[in-house]
């Protein structure tokens, strides 16, 4: 499956529909709060993915080791906001020595503008094995319907 990067579109200005669609969707992702990415230009945390099914959008995020009270999810119109903090806990041993530290704690705030309005009353979120999955049912008129094509006799 194609990997759709978040960071700026490739230099080649492609007029092809798929490329334009991808650029439009990239523009739907905003992040607030200052980030100074040193190693990953345009990279933000937590990394997100957005999917679409017939009747819902599904937003997923990889955020291992999160506590419930450190995550806040809100939906307003077509906007979904994820706010929280990833904490790292290490043993409180006074004689602790650290050999390697790669996992980074920090606060995050991500907002996603969905392509169509959702039914905020029916949003469901599940956090399992370090992955947050948010199901956002589309409003009735925006669901895709399979239309049966009749054959004339």
């Amino acid at each position, binding site marked *: 499956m194609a*990997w*759709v*990067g*978040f960071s700026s579109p490739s230099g080649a200005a492609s007029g092809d529909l798929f490329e334009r669609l991808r650029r439009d*969707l*990239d523009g*739907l*992702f905003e992040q607030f*709060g*200052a*980030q*100074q*990415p040193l*190693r*990953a230009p345009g*990279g*933000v*945390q937590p*990394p*997100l*993915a*957005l*999917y*679409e*099914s*017939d009747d819902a*959008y*599904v937003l997923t995020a*990889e*955020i*291992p*080791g*999160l506590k419930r009270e450190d995550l806040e999810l809100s939906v307003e119109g077509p906007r979904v906001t994820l706010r929280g*903090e990833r*904490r*790292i*806990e*290490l*043993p*409180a*041993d006074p*004689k*602790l*020595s*650290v*050999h*390697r*530290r*790669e*996992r*980074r*704690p*920090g*606060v*995050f705030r991500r907002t996603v503008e969905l392509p169509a309005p959702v039914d905020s009353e029916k949003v469901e979120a599940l*956090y399992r*094995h*370090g*992955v947050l*999955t948010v199901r956002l049912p589309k409003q009735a008129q925006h669901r895709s319907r399979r239309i049966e094509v009749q054959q004339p006799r």
Partner: protein
Amino acid sequence: MSQKPVEVASRELEAQPKQPVARELTRSGPVFQPDVDIVETPEEYRVYADLPGSDGDHVQVRLEEGVLSIDAALAVEPEPGWVPLHREYRLGGWHREFQLSDRIAAERISAEMRDGVLEIRLPKAEAHRPRRIEVRTA
């Protein structure tokens, strides 16, 4: 000895793209290198690995010839009916290896997985624990 966890100071998070691992696999699909923290107390080493999407049933920790290896596969995956619109992270398994010193009591290694974080405890072999020798006054 009670070990109350301390928190490492927070700051604005930065992202890192996943590092792919070039390695022969029994499973097909991409494999990435997880972020780890490795710390040491007088009694043990601890390895913490971020393996989001994986769980205890999908992770394997092995110690062979002094090499500790972590292998994990995804337990949480997108459903077949979902069309991806935008993806900032790649999906795949995890792998990482560490050379350990021979000061580990291999038979007492334990590992626990919770919310996508793997914690491995590697107790030091008795002979290598710092030991305080009491000096008696004659």
